[in-house]
């Protein structure tokens, strides 16, 4: 494999696939690295395998199936592709270190497009570390990639389009959940209503219609449903056995061996932060978002961020965003000039905006309930090092000023997940404790290696780890 590329793309979701395909079609040398076994990212997970399972494809829906064309076009392009590969370091001067099958290699990229997408927002509720508790996305991944559905009573809890979509997919494959606990707040629903007119613009009305159809299908189903749910607590000692919660002013409890949590998605921060890209808190989406311009340029020259990783916009917006960053990368490589870029990008710019029209409404409607960002004292915040919100508040009282200091106080963020899950909660809890904003409290400094690689692997490489 060559070790110098015009562009290295990281992540094979809609943004990464569109970016790599466009670059290859425009004659650039491009390689795409991805953790998964096949193209599609999370949203089109298993898109090539499900092609031979028509009934599963049908149950997953037309939007999912549309990812097939994107993957096909990518496969037909000259873009190089390394699935099941872990990029564990990208330096500010665009050296890319990647591990595949236990061996690491280093490449030099002219431009890097980070398309590492989104992750589900951590949902720190009591009992969320028990076996049997997963994210809604995790259950959907099992369905898409392994045709698996729960065969025990299970409950979906939380809020957001993915939760509704997955509930309907479960219905279609004949494995409905025992109950849906919807945590969408009344306040959000009322505030969102005002944003409806703007949300119908562009392609927004399509999303609204789809949402209405989903809600209708669920209403007409036999699934037990609770609205404005609060106080979710998962019960069990070695494994989830049930979930208790409040709804309609009453306490409830439901037996369940699998409880799936979902409170929307947030940009995956690890890669961009490790390179040194600047982030800012986005109040509307209640998450940290990298600072980018309309073309995906981050604060680091030559590091572009495409798709949901640059701010949540959904799969179609991500695809357009992938192409936009590709055109900008071509300009940065001096293969086209700014006017050429603008001509090539016009259609994608328009289309992306049309698909973003509905976002303000969705962000408002599905904003996480306050208790998600302010877990009770006895709730584990850091799953790896088993640190509770109470312990974190205690060190804040003792003078711990921010997330990076919390590492030395408590080891939060120093376990195997390197703060991927606890990061957003640690920042939120400390910001509340000190009564400052999220940008003031900041976030974990993320250092390579971003993935567990063996000491031998580093030694073979000559061990040139950069302390970013």
């Amino acid at each position, binding site marked *: 494999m060559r070790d110098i590329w015009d562009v290295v793309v990281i992540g094979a979701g809609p943004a990464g696939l569109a970016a790599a395909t466009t670059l290859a079609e425009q004659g650039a040398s491009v390689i795409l690295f991805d953790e998964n076994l096949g193209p599609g990212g999370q949203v089109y997970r298993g898109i090539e395998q499900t092609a031979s399972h028509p009934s599963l494809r049908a149950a997953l829906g037309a939007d999912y199936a549309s990812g097939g064309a994107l993957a096909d076009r990518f496969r037909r392009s000259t873009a190089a592709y390394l699935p099941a590969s872990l990029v564990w370091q990208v330096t500010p001067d665009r050296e890319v270190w990647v591990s595949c099958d236990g061996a690491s290699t280093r490449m030099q990229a002219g431009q890097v497009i980070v398309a590492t997408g989104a*992750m589900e927002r951590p949902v720190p509720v009591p009992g969320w*570390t028990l076996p049997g508790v997963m994210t809604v*996305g995790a259950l959907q991944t099992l369905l898409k990639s*392994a045709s698996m559905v729960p065969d025990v009573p299970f409950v979906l809890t939380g809020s957001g389009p993915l939760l509704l979509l997955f509930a309907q997919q479960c219905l279609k494959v004949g494995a409905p959940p025992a109950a849906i606990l919807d945590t969408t707040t009344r306040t959000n629903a009322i505030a969102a209503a005002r944003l409806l007119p703007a949300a119908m613009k562009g392609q927004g009305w399509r999303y609204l219609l789809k949402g209405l159809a989903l809600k209708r299908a669920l209403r007409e189903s036999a699934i037990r449903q609770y609205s404005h749910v609060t106080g979710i607590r998962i019960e069990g000692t070695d494994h989830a056995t049930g979930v208790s919660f409040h709804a309609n002013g009453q306490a409830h409890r439901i037996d369940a061996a699998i409880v799936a949590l979902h409170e929307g998605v947030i940009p995956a921060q690890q890669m961009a932060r490790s390179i040194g890209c600047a982030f800012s808190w986005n109040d509307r989406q209640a998450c940290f978002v990298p600072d980018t311009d309309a073309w995906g340029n981050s604060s680091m020259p030559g590091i572009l961020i495409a798709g949901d990783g640059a701010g949540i916009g959904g799969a179609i917006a991500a695809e357009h965003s992938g192409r936009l960053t590709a055109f900008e990368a071509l300009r940065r490589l001096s293969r086209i000039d700014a006017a050429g870029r603008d001509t090539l990008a016009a259609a994608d710019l328009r289309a992306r905006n049309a698909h973003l029209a509905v976002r303000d409404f969705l962000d408002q409607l599905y904003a996480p309930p306050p208790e998600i960002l302010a877990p009770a004292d006895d709730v584990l915040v850091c799953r790896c090092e088993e640190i509770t919100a109470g312990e974190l508040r205690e060190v804040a009282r003792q003078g711990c000023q921010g997330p990076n200091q919390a590492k030395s106080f408590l080891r939060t963020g120093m376990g*195997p997940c390197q703060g991927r899950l606890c990061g957003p909660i640690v920042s939120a809890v400390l910001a509340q404790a000190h009564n400052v904003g999220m940008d003031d409290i900041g976030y974990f400094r993320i250092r390579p290696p971003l*993935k*567990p690689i063996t000491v031998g692997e580093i030694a073979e490489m000559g061990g040139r780890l950069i302390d970013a």
Partner: protein
Amino acid sequence: MFRRLDADAGDISFRFNDTEIVARQGDSVAAALLAAGLCAIRATPVTGASRAPYCMMGVCFDCLVEIDGVGNRQACLIPARNGMIVRRQTGARDLL
């Protein structure tokens, strides 16, 4: 815990500690373990609490296992392969 939508159980197999796990081509190790009815596949180094795959997309690291002698592999990202030796990780603090 889980069932497959169709009858095809798979035609590859690997070991998880002392258990023979049958898997399908394209399964991740984590999916194959869950399909085989295993859930708690690791214990935390701090308190020894049982953990199971949480995110299935490489974020939470609660699926860490030892595969063919190499520790701290993310079972949700590694494809199941015939003859693999997978072991449960318990106790020792994870080395990164």
